[in-house]
């Protein structure tokens, strides 16, 4: 069974290419796309446009670093400081190979860091691997572990 993927990506082209890659590999039926970190934060907390949405936390967050309003690193920081989202797997999917970005991401507790290859075929391969691993193979932490136990 496919688990839900949250894709945080501001660039239209990237969204289209990523979704295409997921579709090619039959991984696209449970993907939520948000355009910046603030929207992603709303989705996670079921606030704003996502008030009352269905389902629990995503199985994985595919996170672009450079986004308007709240960038990827900031979102990652907020998630890791919030007991509800601390254990949600996050994969940074970015154009940057900057060492400082990689170091900061891992310091903030990212689960994986993937640099988008320029060649589309490689990109498709990378997205396929990611989707297969995080949305199919990997067992995400159960929801009750992520939320504080009901009083």
């Amino acid at each position, binding site marked *: 069974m496919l688990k839900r993927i949250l894709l945080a990506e501001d660039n239209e*082209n990237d969204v289209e290419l990523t979704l295409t890659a997921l579709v090619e590999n039959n991984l696209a039926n449970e993907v939520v796309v948000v355009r910046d970190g603030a929207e992603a934060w709303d989705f996670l907390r079921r606030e704003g446009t996502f008030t009352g949405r269905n389902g629990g936390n995503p199985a994985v967050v595919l996170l672009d670093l450079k986004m308007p309003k709240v960038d990827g690193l900031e979102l990652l920081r907020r998630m890791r400081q919030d007991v509800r989202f601390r254990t949600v797997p996050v994969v940074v999917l970015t*154009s940057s*190979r*900057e060492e400082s970005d990689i170091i900061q991401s891992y310091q903030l507790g990212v689960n994986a860091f993937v640099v988008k290859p*320029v*060649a589309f075929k490689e*990109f498709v391969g990378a997205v396929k691997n990611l989707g297969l691993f995080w949305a199919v193979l990997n067992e995400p932490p159960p929801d009750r572990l992520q939320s504080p136990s009901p009083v």
Partner: protein
Amino acid sequence: MRVPRTTIRRKLVTAMMLTSTTVLLLVGAVFVAHDVVSFRRFIVQTLVTRADILAANSTAALAFRNPEDASQVLDALKTDPRMIAAALYDQQGLLFATYPLSVSPGVVPSASGPIGHRFEKSDLVVSRPVVEDGRRLGTLYLKSDLQELDNRLRVGAVVVLLAVFGSIAVAFALSTWLQRRIAQPILALAGVAKSVSERKDFSVRSKAAGDDEVGVLAGAFDEMLSEIQQRDREIRLLNADLERRVVARTAELEAANKELEAFSYSVSHDLRAPLRHIDGFVDLLAKHAAPSLDEKGRRQLATISAAARRMGALIDDLLVFSRMGRSEMSKTSVDLSALAKEVVQDLRGDAKDRCVEWKLGQLPTVQGDPSMLRLVLTNLLSNALKYSGPKKEARIEVGANSQNGELIISVRDNGVGFDPAYSHKLFGVFQRLHGMNEFEGTGIGLANVRRIVSRHGGRTWAEGAINEGATFYFSLPK
């Protein structure tokens, strides 16, 4: 500053004392000598006169051959304690009378001697003629002791010594006083020089007045100190200015570095994205429009795609190169032999279907950044492998030697080599001596090698000829 063993004070006093004492001793000696000579002359004269008087008184006794009278005349000598003996001789030179009356033998000669005087051991002896009316009647002999002369000498010596000691005391007092006047300014000058050299305090002044040479010296010294103080101040000002400028320049450099980092970040993040999109959408288009495209159209799409990918590779290489120059370098012991073996192991996988003979010589252990040095060896060895591709049997040798305090590592291949006329271009960024269709690559590898080696304090160079292989060298300081 060295402490002088003898002070100038002591030297001055010693010089003055030595001079005055020597002069005094010389003068005293001359004085005593002169006194002794004139006194001897005086006592000889006195004795001769006395002898002449006695001779005159003795003429009657000799003429009448009356020895009692003669003895009586001679006996008058007893009033003078200095008289030891006297004798009167007759015309024939025979002893006539003596003083004292009975004289021990040998005290007076038994016969008259020549007229004159002479000094014997401690006596003065005088012989005078006894003459009356031009007729020689006999000879008078007188013997006196030299007690008086000895006394005189002793007194003279004592006086001279007293004078010398007195003078030495006066000279000492005088020279001490004089010395103080002469040495004071010199000592003050020495004190100033000492405090300058010990405390490096150039603000002190000797202020030693005086119109003599010491005054001139002190003046010159003070002037020199002023000059040094002035220059010291100027140097301090210059230094402060320089430091300020260094701080400003450092800030500028830091700002520039930050800007460069921001630039490379932006290149890394923003420039690659459109390239990805080009390649991605070309791929999508190719799939989408494949049926309606002819061979030419498909080739053009492939070219767009390849160009985008190549630009991606160039950007990646440029970023690595820029990182090589900026990233911090660690410094640990790196065993180049082990490193080369690992690199060759990695490369062997890429050349499974080729016949390559690897010859790894003994390489030294050096101080440096392991990952950077690995990149150097990887670039050089993969180049050697790449450019020896056309050879049926490729041979790649790695060696090292030590020369002029440097370690020199060489990588030699028997590949296509290069035209030595362009060897200066080899290590430039994106410089290639071969066409893309001959050998792939962006041309960043050797630029990285040069940058890393130069950051380790070494040099890079290459030798080669077309179709005769190439040797690449890099040096590392020991």
